[in-house]
């Protein structure tokens, strides 16, 4: 409870002052006292979080603290039990075409890439725009190639996902999400299934995105990324947000005991 009060105070401070990196844009995503349980297990408990246009928020926390669940609630891969989520000025649609349209506006990158296994790299990127946005194929192909270029896998366009390294697959997955021109990108531990040498190539793409002004919510324990690209760090514990702050302040001087414990465990590895 005491922590909650602290969090709210922080957020106001961030919104108004900050170190100049916090954008003053309007609120794009607003999560208001969202709770979610799986049976008896409380995965999210009264979570509040506002994300502004152009802002990059990094979510941290121990395994099982609810980071993935939070991301998945934002594009309604998981439904919430209570509270509300407002995206781009509208409550999340319940189902049907409106929900599909919302998801088209929210890009998601998964830990396990989830590229369409039966489609080539190019087709993976083209599928969404042509099927969902009804973009003419030639136009979609042209843009897909530009995106593959941007993430550095243009030369693999006619390969199948299984023929690519993990890092390459994840970059294609980012291109696939970007092809939809999302207003918000969600990353759920995009590098934790990757070998160390591939982590960097994915993080570089993400940093580039952040620099270009993409609004992002990224679950990642990559402190380098958080320091380079994040405007704000959110620390979760047992389904609650227990601390938020600027990356440097958070990593050098976390205010809560839980965050200190957590940081000492990830620093040791």
């Amino acid at each position, binding site marked *: 409870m005491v922590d909650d009060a602290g969090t709210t105070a922080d957020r106001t401070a961030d919104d108004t002052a900050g170190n100049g990196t916090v954008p003053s844009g309007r609120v794009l995503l607003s999560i208001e006292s969202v709770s979610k349980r799986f049976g008896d297990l409380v995965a999210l408990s009264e979570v509040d979080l506002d994300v502004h246009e152009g802002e990059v928020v990094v979510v941290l926390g121990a395994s099982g603290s609810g980071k993935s669940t939070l991301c998945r609630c934002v594009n309604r891969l998981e439904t919430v039990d209570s509270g509300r989520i407002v995206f781009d000025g509208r409550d999340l649609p319940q189902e049907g075409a409106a929900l599909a349209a919302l998801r088209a506006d929210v890009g998601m990158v998964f830990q396990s890439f989830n590229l*369409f296994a039966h489609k080539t790299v190019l087709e993976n990127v083209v599928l969404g725009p042509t099927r969902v946005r009804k973009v003419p194929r030639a136009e979609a192909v042209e843009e897909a190639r530009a995106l593959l270029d941007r993430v550095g896998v243009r030369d693999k366009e006619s390969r199948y996902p299984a023929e690519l390294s993990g890092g390459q697959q994840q970059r294609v997955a980012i291109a696939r999400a970007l092809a939809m021109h999302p207003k918000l990108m969600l990353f759920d531990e995009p590098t934790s299934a990757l070998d160390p040498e591939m982590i960097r190539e994915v993080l570089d793409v993400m940093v580039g995105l952040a620099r270009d002004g993409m609004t992002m919510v990224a679950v990642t324990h990559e402190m380098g990324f958080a320091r380079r690209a994040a405007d704000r760090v959110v620390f979760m514990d047992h389904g609650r947000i227990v601390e938020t702050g600027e990356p440097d302040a958070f990593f050098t001087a976390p205010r809560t005991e839980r965050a200190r414990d957590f940081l000492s465990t990830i620093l040791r590895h």
Partner: protein
Amino acid sequence: MHEVVHHLGYLAAGLGTTLELSLLGFAGAFVLGTLLTVMRVCPIVPLRVVGTLYVEVFRNVPLLAFLVLFVFGLPDAGITCSLFTSEAVCLALYFATYVCEAVRAGINAVPVGQAEAARAIGMTFGQSLGTVILPQAFRTMVQPLANVFIGVVLSSSLGAAVGVSELIGRTQWLDLQYDEPVPTFLLAAAGYVLVTLAVALLAGRVQKRMAVRR
């Protein structure tokens, strides 16, 4: 023996009818079975219930009983069609449940992340099923579907019991004419083995070709 050999053409025509029945029956079963699966996995509850009920009912009645009811019951209800058509429809309705089980197993073999990725880029239920899930599911289903087809071929012989002149029907007729059960039924059996072997071979080929690109 000699007499029977003279009637090879007659038997071959029976095999032809068997094949036609099987192909039509299987095609119908494939379409209906896929539709049933879509109903059973879709988010609309009444459709799910209907799909499940259908499968439960048809799987728990012997095909022969169903065939007899169908062939003799329909005219009573004022619907008349040829014996051939009746049996083809019957096979389709009946084997749809087997196709349904095969497709469901195929869908379950597709990692759940594939469906989530499809939904996450804004695909509707139908789009994700049609462009992402089913195409991948069918790859794992070649062998199970081939087994269903073989089931249809063998079960089409039940048509003999209601007077369809397919391979077994004709075999019985020859047997009655010449009282040569062993050679006639051996010939018929050879016909079925030929077809099922061909199907198994073809399925193996198709499976291999699908495995290459992925």
